[in-house]
């Protein structure tokens, strides 16, 4: 079955193989045997064999590609089943390793990095194989949750496209060769104070790494350390306390999804919206150019062009008695006034925050306003920096580029970063690199930069290596490896930096441990294992940070120190459209471009997969005669790039948003060629926004794969009471109104006897008021349940395999952009008690368990698809082709051994993570007790940053889920069909400002129609 119904392997001509084998050596030989399947001759043969319409075989970057692609070097095959834990002692989260029992996963605490900042995670390890990532409840930036990228880290570890060999100009070399090369390079630099040495890193919070860099710069005072974080420095300061804030104004800050603290912020923000009408709700105002998750769930949202945001902030400040002249000319003066009034009314319990991508001036204004309102110290804290030596990224990179052009750089060491792809176009970074005599690159992939470097050192994945990092609030985490590096030539940044010191060739473990031995002092031997176990270094404070703070850090990401507000002049708006750059919400600056899970994850608001697009407001598009899938040429500051158009309600007028991270050429076989490279028109002086963009039609079209039809369907959704949203006042007045929107057949109105379920009856409640649409639950489900990636072509056909999807419905009046809002509705299997799918299955492959689960028996399923047709929620997924990868060794390592891997022709669906239920049942049974409430956490539930999902036993009236379902705003989807879903929803309750509620009303009217 390994090759499945996949011809290629069969038709390999051995002569060709032999020819290839001659001259090839070591691993490459094996790899080419695998890749032979994709030779052009073969594909061409297939074309002659089958007409073009029959293109499952050759859809570019489609699933076939993805899979055969993942068919990686057989060298890995050796790894299957004989993965080993690192030699050094690592400490599991719950039990010590000697308790390792087959089938019993162990959890290890470590951290994932978001722009260099730590988010605590627990990694599930099956006999030494990391398979799944959960959040670390003890970590301040996680609180038990993770984000989409974090979930995909485990796929990154096993990505067969990772670089596997240390190479010099493409030739395989030994680590000792590399050390020798470094030694000789240093020998040249040492006498000249390292004047020709440049080190380029991303944002660094790792105390150990910082110390190493400090040591190197100490030895070579003239050497320079540059930092470049393409997705924005995302400095975590200021730290917000949303649980303290009653009124929040976000100036283009997507705090629920974006940034190192997003998980905590999302939790704290939604915590204040969980029991409306019983506990006071907070109120959120968002001003932003392009719809973000935060903006789309806000109580009030005002779309503004980037150039108008500062003006708005100024207007608010003015209304608060700010000395500067009131900006009456501001487009949304009334709005600003109302917001200001509301903020004033909640002085000390309000919060104003500016987004990562806003200029210093806006950050300064936000700080100004917070100070005036006395919020500082209450809802917001401006603390010392966490990043080691924060700098203005673009400026730092520009300086490096200038030095290179001027030939002042002799040795360039790039750690992890990929500037050849991510650098703004105006720096011509790639070209400048040619001038550097010795170029060294450490990276997970042989990427665009690696191709331009002499030395490429494969980077050990953070789950393979020792390191440490700090969270947004300075908490340090020691990152312990879960598995010995899959490729023995892989090295960590610590080990590569060590090569530049007087003591080369030290193990990462020793480097990190030695650092902390110094830091933790006397009782190191007690605190070290504790720190590994907890995932946080208890009692270690910022004070001992190795690098002092600089003034710049109080402001936003890589920004210059914020000048006094008066000095700031609003940016001149040129003609034409305004352009907004954003990192992709999932693949970020492109570093995750090769992770199929993230490529196929629908973007929160656009629901696009596998591509980025030029996002335009419908009205703006109409004015220019543009429609979805039209390819336009974006002309900006003398540079051009072609991009497909996607119209997006809620987008600011005359504004185009493009996402970074796409158009990679050396991302790997999944990420290559997906989307267009937005950094081709990006400039280092205005990295996030600018004006003077022209969008010219090319007449071409490109089909974008969206998982949901266009938004015009949403009026229809209103009449069906799918999303139920009321204001807090309405809810207080008549709480029953939500349930009564549809008629629910009484339970006794049936000819059949009602079934009873024992001992448990599993149910789920999803709080629409808490869901921010981040899709972390979807990736978690993919990771937990071995769900395949199908590729763009198949997604476009409507064949994505996600068991859990997050539906997005727009509401509001298209004419008034400020009324546009999105409603997110996670949709797993409803586990209907009267399941329409079961009755129609001819072979009884889907039946009910006695605890009320709608079981799918994969072995029995013959694939008539009748069940899916008859499912009113359309939550069943079918393997139309061989979507699952049966051949790639590394991917086998990732699979969850508790979940069967489905093959072609079988229907599959959400099971409420039955494997977790059974796991808990066995544990409980062994301990001779009942399953405790909350003991079973579904994958989607445990990952959710806002705890929107609660799962449990509805037989037990005291369980969390029962209490939730007891709320008045609990309702079942399509209850009138008498399917009796076990999954129900808590209706949305919004808290609009009466002064502005005209728009809120307009919005409400949409879905009470």
């Amino acid at each position: 079955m390994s090759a499945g119904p996949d011809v290629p392997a069969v038709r390999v001509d051995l002569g060709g193989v032999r020819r290839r084998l001659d001259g090839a050596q070591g691993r490459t030989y094996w790899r080419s045997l695998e890749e032979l399947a994709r030779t052009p001759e073969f594909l061409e043969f297939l074309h002659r064999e089958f007409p073009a319409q029959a293109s499952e075989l050759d859809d570019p970057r489609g699933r076939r590609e993805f899979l055969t692609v993942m068919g990686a070097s057989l060298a890995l095959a050796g790894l299957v089943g004989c993965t080993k834990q690192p030699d050094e002692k690592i400490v599991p989260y719950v039990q010590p390793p000697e308790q390792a029992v087959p089938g019993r996963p162990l959890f290890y605490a470590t951290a994932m990095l978001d722009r260099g900042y730590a988010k605590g995670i627990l990694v599930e390890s099956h006999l030494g194989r990391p398979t799944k990532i959960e959040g670390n409840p003890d970590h301040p930036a996680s609180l038990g949750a993770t984000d989409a990228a974090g979930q995909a880290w485990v796929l990154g570890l096993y990505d067969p496209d990772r670089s596997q060999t240390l190479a010099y100009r493409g030739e395989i070399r030994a680590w000792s060769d590399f050390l020798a090369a470094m030694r000789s390079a240093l020998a040249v630099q040492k006498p000249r104070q390292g004047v020709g040495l440049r080190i380029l890193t991303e944002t660094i919070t790792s105390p150990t790494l910082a110390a190493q860099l400090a040591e190197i710069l100490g030895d070579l005072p003239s050497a320079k350390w540059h930092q470049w974080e393409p997705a924005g420095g995302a400095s975590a300061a200021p730290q917000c306390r949303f649980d303290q804030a009653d009124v929040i104004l976000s100036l283009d800050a997507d705090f629920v999804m974006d940034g190192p603290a997003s998980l905590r912020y999302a939790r704290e923000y939604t915590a204040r919206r969980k029991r409306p009408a019983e506990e006071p709700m907070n109120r959120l105002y968002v001003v932003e150019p392009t719809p973000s998750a935060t903006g789309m769930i806000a109580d009030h949202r005002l779309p503004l062009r980037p150039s108008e945001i500062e003006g708005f902030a100024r207007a608010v400040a003015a209304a608060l008695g700010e000395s500067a002249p009131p900006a009456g000319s501001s487009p949304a003066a009334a709005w600003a006034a109302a917001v200001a009034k509301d903020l004033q009314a909640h002085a000390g319990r309000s919060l104003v925050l500016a987004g990562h991508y806003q200029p210093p001036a806006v950050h300064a204004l936000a700080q100004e306003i917070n100070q005036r309102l006395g919020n500082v110290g209450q809802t917001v804290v401006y603390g010392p920096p966490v990043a080691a030596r924060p700098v203005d990224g673009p400026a730092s990179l520009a300086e490096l580029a200038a030095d290179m052009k001027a030939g002042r750089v002799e040795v360039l060491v790039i750690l992890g970063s990929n500037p050849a792809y991510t650098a703004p176009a105006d720096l011509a970074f790639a070209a400048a690199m040619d001038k550097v005599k010795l170029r060294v690159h450490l990276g997970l992939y042989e990427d665009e930069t690696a191709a331009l470097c002499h030395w490429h050192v494969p980077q050990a994945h953070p789950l393979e290596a020792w390191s440490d990092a700090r969270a947004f609030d300075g908490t340090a985490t020691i990152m312990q490896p879960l598995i010995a590096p899959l490729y023995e030539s892989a090295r960590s940044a610590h080990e590569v930096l060590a090569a530049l010191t007087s003591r080369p060739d030290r193990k990462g473990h020793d480097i990190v441990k030695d650092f902390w031995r110094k830091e933790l002092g006397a009782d190191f031997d007690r605190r070290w294992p504790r720190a590994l176990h907890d995932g946080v270094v208890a009692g270690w404070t910022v004070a001992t940070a190795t690098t002092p703070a600089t003034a710049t850090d109080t402001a936003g990401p890589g920004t210059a120190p914020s000048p006094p507000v008066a000095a700031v002049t609003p940016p001149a708006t040129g003609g034409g459209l305004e352009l907004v750059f954003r990192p992709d919400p999932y693949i970020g600056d492109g570093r995750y471009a090769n992770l199929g899970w993230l490529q196929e994850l629908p973007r929160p608001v656009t629901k696009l997969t596998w591509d980025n697009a030029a996002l335009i407001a419908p009205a703006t598009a109409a004015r220019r005669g543009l429609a979805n899938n039209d390819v336009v040429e974006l002309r900006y500051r003398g540079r051009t790039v072609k991009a497909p158009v996607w119209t997006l309600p809620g987008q600011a007028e005359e504004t185009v948003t493009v996402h970074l991270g796409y158009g990679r050429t050396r991302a790997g076989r999944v990420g290559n060629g997906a989307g267009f490279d937005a950094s081709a028109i990006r400039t280092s002086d205005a990295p996030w926004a600018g004006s003077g963009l022209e969008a010219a039609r090319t007449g071409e079209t490109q089909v974008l794969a969206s998982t949901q039809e266009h938004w015009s369907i949403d009026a229809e959704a209103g009449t069906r009471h799918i999303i139920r949203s009321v204001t807090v006042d309405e809810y207080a007045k008549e709480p029953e109104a939500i349930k009564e929107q549809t008629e629910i057949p009484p339970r006794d109105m049936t000819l059949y006897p009602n079934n009873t379920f024992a001992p448990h009856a599993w149910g789920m409640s999803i709080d629409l008021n808490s869901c921010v649409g981040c899709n972390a639950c979807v990736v978690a489900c993919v990771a937990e349940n071995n769900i395949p990636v199908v590729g763009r072509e198949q997604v476009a056909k409507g064949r994505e395999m996600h068991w859990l999807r997050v539906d997005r419905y727009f509401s509001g009046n298209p004419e008034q952009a400020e009324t546009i809002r999105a409603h997110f509705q996670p949709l797993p299997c409803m586990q209907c008690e009267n399941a329409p799918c079961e009755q129609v299955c001819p072979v009884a492959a889907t039946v009910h368990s006695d605890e009320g689960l709608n079981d799918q028996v994969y072995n029995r399923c013959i694939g008539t698809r009748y069940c899916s047709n008859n499912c009113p929620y359309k939550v069943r997924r079918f393997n139309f082709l061989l979507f699952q990868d049966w051949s790639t060794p590394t991917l086998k390592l990732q699979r969850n051994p508790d979940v069967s891997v489905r093959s072609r022709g079988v229907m599959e669906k959400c099971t409420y993570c039955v494997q977790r239920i059974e796991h808990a049942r066995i544990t409980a049974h062994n301990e001779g007790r009942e399953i405790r409430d909350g003991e079973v956490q579904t994958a989607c539930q445990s990952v959710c940053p806002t705890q929107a999902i609660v799962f449990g036993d509805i037989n037990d009236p005291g369980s969390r889920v029962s209490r939730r379902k007891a709320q008045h705003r609990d309702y079942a989807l399509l209850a009138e069909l008498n399917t009796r879903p076990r999954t129900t929803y808590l209706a949305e309750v919004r808290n609009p400002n009466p002064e502005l509620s005209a728009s809120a009303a307009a919005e409400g009217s949409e879905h009470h129609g």
Partner: protein
Amino acid sequence: MVERPDGEPPVVHVPHPEMHALLAPGHNFATVTEKISSLVLQKGTPLWWFAGFGVSFAVMNLMLVSIAYLVFKGVGIWGENIPVGWAFDILNFVWWIGIGHAGTLISAILLLLRQEWRTSINRFAEAMTLFAVACAGVYPALHTGRPWLDYWLFPYPNTMGLWPNFRSPLIWDVFAVSTYATVSALFWFIGLIPDFATLRDRTTSRFAAHVYGMLAMGWRGSARHWHNYDTAYLLLAGLATPLVISVHTVVSFDFAVGIIPGWHATIFPPYFVAGAIYAGFAMVLTLAIPLRKLYGLEDFITTRHLENMGKVMLATGLIVAYGYMMEVFAGWYSGNPYEAFMIKNRMLGPYQHFYWALIVCNVISPQFLWIKNVRTSTVGLFICAMFTNVGMWLERFVIVVTSLHRDFLPSSWGMYHPTFWDWSTYIGTIGLFFTLFFLFVRFMPVISIFEMRTIVPGAEVREETAS
């Protein structure tokens, strides 16, 4: 052996008046027998047969290729997706099954109703039924994700200890369609036995004599044989009548039992059955009109036959039209937002052109059959029949695809686009159908010879001798 002394010729009888239209005058036992059996026994095969068979056979092979690729790759080569889990496969299945209704209906129901005009058309109508059912059978067998496990649909003792789910309409289909295929085949074969005997006795080739001889199983037309034979034939007709009604009723359950708006309707069984008869007679005409011309069978398949079939089409067409009307009415009257939207979506949605084409083909075109001149002209009838063939296909497309592609939750709505393989499989089944039909007309009597003898003048025993 002794010759009778007076070579007195047999008395000529005055034929029964109302038989005129069913058989051209001047025929007797011998001529009828010779005419029909010679179609099979004649030396040399007409050129048009080779042409027709060649084309059909080529097209059938297209189907075989498509099937091979399907099994090799999976149903993903078709355009289906979530939400449209069924499309060409099921709609073509229903289309073929519908066509496969006329045969048994003509043989059974018209026999019970003593409609003698059925005599000259029931044989190839039955054959057509079998071949249509064969084509239909291709789809349920191959539309599954794992066709090699289809046998799990049948109730048989197995090591898994599992049984089919008898609540599923698909299992009902398995029983209904397989029963229908079996009974139709038996019915058809029984009807053929006496004619095989005729061919056995008349052929000059030893080989043919052996083959037909085996098929005839030693039939010699003894009075006892005929006695049991008639009883059996009548009983079969009596059994096949409820069966033929049940089959399309069960097929309609595939949809009516479902929950999807556009499927979940109590009117489905009657209007599916009517639709099936409608489609079946259309196909009979489509085949009969060219056949009688090519074989010069105008004497046997007369204008009266064609006109009667036209009348049946008109009647059933009106029932079908009523069905469409009721769907729309229910959509409005139920006040159910999903039903209402479903109708609106059919009429104005992305697939609206299918719906309106359907109305033209199935509601407008049969109205021309009110006109006698149309009913009695082969050309007019043929055009109407073709419209109906297309219309019934469109009806199934509208029911299957447009109901599925937009059901309850707008977030899951999608579109269906048939692929090359959808078309190649469908066209391929048409090839299979005609391949079988050409073989049939070449090697078997297309008209029931012994039944034709019964309507020859003088076939009846004169009562005055009964004293």
